[in-house]
């Protein structure tokens, strides 16, 4: 069936499309082209003629040990954050999917954190997990420095991952619950008749059938962890990339260099590297992990 709407003139459809086209040009293609240009030129911080420098920006970026530190931090953040969000979302979804009496309000409550902006959640957790006044303060009183994200990079990284997981678990929860609800109830009943308890059913029946959803979330959450707006917002409001670059994820570093350091060229080069990295990761995921996924 041909459902195309027929327009007699060319200008009317163009007019309809124009707002969208302007938005895309203005906020997507123009910046993208600018980044591409800046990455290969030396862009003066306060305007003026740019000078073409070839790959010099990239050489400088790769020569910087702090850059490689931020790549490592980003990898750790994205991997741990992704696994934590998916695991928590999965456990919550499995629990809610059992539809035990009184479980309905939880379906709503578990989604709620997703509605909160990352930076706000970050601020809240700075207080909740503050070493002097927060939940861990009593532990710190007994074991000094058991938890101190202001002092140890590893603790700070755990802190931002916790915030990320807290916020995004609600998101994976929605998808996983929807996935679980599309698993025919009779399969679960058949497994119950075959002698499975709830955990065995989850591992043997539900999770394998959720594979497409899990794979989708893996790709989405990895991308979110690397370049998501929340990743920047959480780090900026919670740890400021510190202590000692311990939470200096790639997006944070890029924004800091560009808008505080006014090093547009270096930041642009880093952006291109980050995009390349995400493409490689997504390729690996599709190439090696998707093969294990059965869609039907």
């Amino acid at each position, binding site marked *: 069936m041909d459902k195309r709407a027929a327009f007699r003139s060319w200008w009317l459809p163009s007019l309809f499309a124009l707002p969208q086209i302007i938005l895309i040009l203005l906020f997507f293609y123009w910046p993208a082209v600018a980044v591409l240009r800046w990455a290969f030129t030396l862009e003066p911080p306060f305007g003026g003629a740019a000078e073409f420098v070839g790959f010099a920006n990239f050489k400088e970026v790769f020569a910087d040990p702090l850059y490689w530190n931020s790549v490592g931090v980003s990898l750790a953040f994205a991997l741990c954050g992704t696994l934590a969000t998916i695991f928590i979302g999965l456990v919550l979804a499995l629990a809610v999917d059992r539809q035990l009496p009184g479980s309905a309000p939880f379906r709503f409550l578990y989604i709620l954190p997703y509605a909160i902006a990352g930076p706000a959640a970050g601020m809240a957790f700075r207080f909740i997990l503050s070493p002097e006044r927060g939940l861990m303060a009593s532990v710190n009183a007994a074991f000094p420095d058991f938890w101190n994200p202001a002092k140890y990079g590893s603790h700070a990284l755990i802190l931002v991952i916790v915030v990320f997981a807290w916020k995004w678990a609600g998101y994976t929860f929605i998808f996983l619950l929807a996935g679980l609800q599309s698993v025919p109830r009779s399969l679960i*009943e*058949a497994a119950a008749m075959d002698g499975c308890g709830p955990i065995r059913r989850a591992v043997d029946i539900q999770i394998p059938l959720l594979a497409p959803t899990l794979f989708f979330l893996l790709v989405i959450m990895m991308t979110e962890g690397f370049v998501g707006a929340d990743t920047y917002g959480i780090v900026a409001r919670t740890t400021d990339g510190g202590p000692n670059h311990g939470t200096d994820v790639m997006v944070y570093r890029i924004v800091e260099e560009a808008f505080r350091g006014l090093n547009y060229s270096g930041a642009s080069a880093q952006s291109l590297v980050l995009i390349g990295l995400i493409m490689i990761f997504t390729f690996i995921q599709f190439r090696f992990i998707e093969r294990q996924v*059965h869609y039907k």
Partner: protein
Amino acid sequence: MADIAIRAVRKSYGKNPTLHGIDLAFASGEFVVILGPSGCGKSTLLRMIAGLEEITSGEIAINGKVVNRLEPRERGCAMVFQNYALYPHMTVAGNIGYALKVAGVPKAERLRRIEETAKIVGLSDYLDRKPAALSGGQRQRVAMARAIIREPNVFLFDEPLSNLDAKLRVTMRAEIRKLHQRLSATSIFVTHDQVEAMTLADKLVVMNKGVVEQVGQPLDIYHRPASIFVASFIGSPAMNLFDAAVDVDNACLTFGGTKMVIDRALAVRLGARHITVGIRPEQCVVAPEGVSIKVDFIEELGSGRVIHSELNGHPFAATVDEHTRARPGDRVTLELPLAHLHLFDQETGRRIEIDLAPRAARNSASQQTLQAV
């Protein structure tokens, strides 16, 4: 092998009662078919026996042991689901052997039993396939094999044949019957198809609207339906039911301008009232005298034909042999033998246990008892 007792079992969803007190007892090794229209609660009852549905009140005992609080896995039942419920990500062998895997049976023994079971249902060549690569009948077999391998005390079948095409359904029906003879485990089979029910059952339970209408052997139920519902539900084409008045003074039943003479003593016992009279289409006989009906249309069955008509405002069907020629619009005279009439109380819908043609008279039923007015 296990006997099953169902005592005063009720089920309600919230405030809606779906089962209103079911009492049934099944002997060990019996093949029980629960028959009823959709929504009558038959599947709910089966799922309560399986442990998939909570029992609101009453109790169910398997082998003398009350199972109300037991998990499905502790009840020793195996179930074949309507949509087969095969695990799509496992091979046929994986599906069949899953219960053993869960039970921790060692791999070698498991494989041996999978092979054995697959042979019983004729799936030996398909063990490595996924369910998606099987036909409907093969999936059905996998579902049965999955139940068989557990050597259960009780087999539960939840409308297992309703997704198959007509021909395959007949074949699978025969296979299920053979399987039962071989394993002789107590089997409970839920269906809405009365042909399936008649052919499979040792004991037939007819349910309607959450109550048991009648329990008995299929033929008994066919010959002596306990209520108007059972009479209309069992038999194909369905039993003709029409309204008749008992005339005690003249000792006859009157309906649609016809008088049917009955024994005076029986007429007195019935009393002057309106009753519902039933007769099966296959028991109507074309005769020189009797009830005259106008043919509306004819269904050809090959071995015979069904004349559809109307009597006293109710649809009326009669099965006649292939030599009876009739066209739409023709009039046909049918004899309705007294011995084959079923009488029902109009208020309760229950059968009136009066035999219009006592046994002695039955052989001479050809004696004319009908007269056209």
